[in-house]
């Protein structure tokens, strides 16, 4: 059975990120000859001394013309054990916004540092954003080991510096791999140049990292997405509640409560076109039928009577602000999308802006600018059924939408009630 692993890469072109991705794709035979020929030809035409692997990922005309990466790019490769989705986030333009986007769905984050330069401000920022987004696994790749004579001392010193820094963060699982993306050392296979390194190659680590326990299988949450009513002769009275399991395990016969009504009933069946299933768990998309007819529609939440999410209109959250047009401040109003609910929200307070380089809290600034993160109090027009983001990345996250432009302007991670 092949599992899916989503990972985000962070680092700038100078750290060799594109080369590393190119190497992973090339060595796992995911770069095709016509892509390779085209990259070689363009590199040659531009007079570059080596085959520029960044050209494989930079897809837009403006990117190629300006030699920059604009947007998150998604790349794919597979081994017999896992299929990988890489969210490749650029190092410079719109940095925080892209990194937050890529990390929001990632099981693992790969942070690159240059062995010659060690931990930079940018590496610390990557680590802070990654842990804020609750990416469960972090791998620090110390790249360009060939340029420091494959020195164990260099690697160990970078490792311990990062460990000291990471102790202040809530990192779930942290690994270190010394590599040379250019030469392929420790990327796919263990390198003979670093016999002192006893860990796995990067690819082996990606194939092996245990992700099954990362989901919340305790707190049962099923946000109702859509009501299936066939209204046909065969399924005359059929009423199924379609959705994606956001947490916990649902079984046929389970006693459940439906919010906001708070009424209890039992699960009579869990349906899919492949036939009924006994149990549903994240991230399955299923259709749940209930024994009793109780008011249930899009935005309702099905959960267990003794384990319910928080219900409230006043919410504290960390928000990453993404609008290029205007800052976020008290009194601003937005559309908020949380699970399958859509409501309106007003900003009551911006209590501090977080410096993503130092974790310092700048209190009293009263607003958040583009690519800044901060703690915000919101009030919504109707109650949300939520968990803390640290407990559940699905029921703890939301986006803010500008009501004038319809742009997505904020990403929120719920801390709790004020």
């Amino acid at each position, binding site marked *: 059975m092949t599992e899916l692993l989503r990972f985000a890469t962070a680092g700038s072109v100078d750290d060799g990120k594109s080369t590393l991705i190119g190497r992973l794709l090339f060595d796992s035979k995911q770069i095709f000859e016509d892509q390779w020929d085209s990259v070689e030809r363009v590199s040659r035409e531009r007079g570059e001394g080596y085959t520029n692997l960044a050209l494989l990922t930079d897809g837009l005309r403006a990117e190629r013309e300006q030699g920059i990466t*604009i947007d998150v790019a998604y790349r794919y490769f597979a081994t017999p054990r896992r299929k990988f989705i890489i969210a490749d986030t650029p190092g410079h333009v719109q940095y925080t916004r892209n990194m937050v986007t890529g990390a929001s769905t990632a099981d693992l984050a790969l942070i690159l540092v240059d062995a010659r330069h060690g931990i930079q401000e940018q590496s610390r920022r990557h680590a802070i954003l990654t842990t804020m987004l609750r990416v469960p696994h972090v791998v620090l790749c110390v790249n360009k080991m060939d340029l420091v004579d494959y020195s164990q001392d260099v690697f160990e010193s970078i490792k311990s510096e990062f460990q000291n820094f990471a102790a202040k963060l809530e990192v779930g699982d942290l690994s270190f791999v010394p590599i040379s993306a250019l030469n392929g050392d420790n990327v796919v296979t263990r390198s003979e140049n670093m016999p002192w390194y006893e860990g796995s190659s990067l690819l082996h680590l990606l194939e092996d990292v245990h992700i099954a326990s990362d989901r919340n299988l305790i707190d049962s949450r099923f946000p109702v997405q859509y009501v299936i009513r066939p209204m046909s002769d065969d399924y005359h009275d059929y009423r199924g509640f*379609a959705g994606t399991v956001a947490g916990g395990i649902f079984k046929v016969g389970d006693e459940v409560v439906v919010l906001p009504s708070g009424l209890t009933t039992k699960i009579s069946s869990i349906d899919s076109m492949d036939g009924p299933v006994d149990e549903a768990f994240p991230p399955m998309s299923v259709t749940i039928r209930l024994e009793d007819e109780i008011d249930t529609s899009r935005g309702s939440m099905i959960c267990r009577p003794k384990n319910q999410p928080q219900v409230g209109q006043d919410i504290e959250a960390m928000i990453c602000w993404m609008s290029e047009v205007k800052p976020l401040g008290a009194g601003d109003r937005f559309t908020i999308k949380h699970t399958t609910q859509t409501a309106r929200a007003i900003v009551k307070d911006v209590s501090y802006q977080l410096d993503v380089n130092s974790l310092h809290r700048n209190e009293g600034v009263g607003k958040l600018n583009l690519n800044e993160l901060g703690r915000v109090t919101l009030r919504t027009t109707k109650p949300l059924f939520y968990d803390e983001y640290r407990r559940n990345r699905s029921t703890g996250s939301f986006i803010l939408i500008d009501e004038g432009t319809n742009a997505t302007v904020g990403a929120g991670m719920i801390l709790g009630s004020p």
Partner: protein
Amino acid sequence: MSYTLTHLRAIEAEAIHIMREVAAEFERPCLLFSGGKDSIVMLHVAAKAFYPAKLPFTLMHVDTGHNFQEVLDYRDRRVAELDARLVVASVQASIDSGRVVEDKRPGATRNRLQTTTLLDAIEEHRFDAVFGGARRDEEKARAKERVYSFRDEFGQWDPKNQRPELWSLYNGRHKAGEHIRIFPLSNWTELDIWQYIKDEEIPLPAIYFAHTRPVFRQHGLIMAVHEVCPAPPGAEVFDMKVRYRTVGDASCTAAVESDADTVDKVIVEVAATRITERGATRVDDKFSEAAMEDRKREGYF
């Protein structure tokens, strides 16, 4: 029980989630269905998403008039099985009414003309969400496109002004006249498509499997002799065992030499192949580095 999904079940669940989200939030969605394998898989997933109800949206085929008959037959059979509503938007009608001018030079295709026909149909039927089967592994510009891809009132895609897409929270807000293209198979690869076809036992038009037909070579590609794509004077026509990796307009889709006459053999072939799907088969992407990006900006699928 380990409570884990295989990668195919995980990407299927993601696609179902996206489709239900669209059905819940949009007024008039439609699903582009050409009879090509990606749209066949997309339609299969859609049927699963709303089972046991019928599809809550219309199907649309942008018909260039340059078709493979077995693909059209497949399309009509599938529409009948699902008891779905199909709208056929005709490029020929766009040409006849003077909306577009056909390039009659040898080697010209109707591919680019489809954009006008598609946008006219979206406007006529007031579709506000249009499902497409595009995958991000197909092409570099697509690798950066969102699952919900916003289009302005001219149907244009602005790659530098895309909405950030976080978690599985999709922003489908738009004003009257604007619409959103929806790509539920964004995270699928060509190999995933074939493995899914095998797992789900999805029937396909026969031209996806190896068969012998008269062909000729053009610009390094293998083109089938077809009424809209005759061999140019002097070209050598010969029989070859081929199959199609993609099926588009008959005048711009090339075949590949192949012995793969079953799904299993195709999977082996796809896993071992060293040329991208579009690189091997699409005449229209050979023009420039940014051919796809330019077409997408204008409103292409």
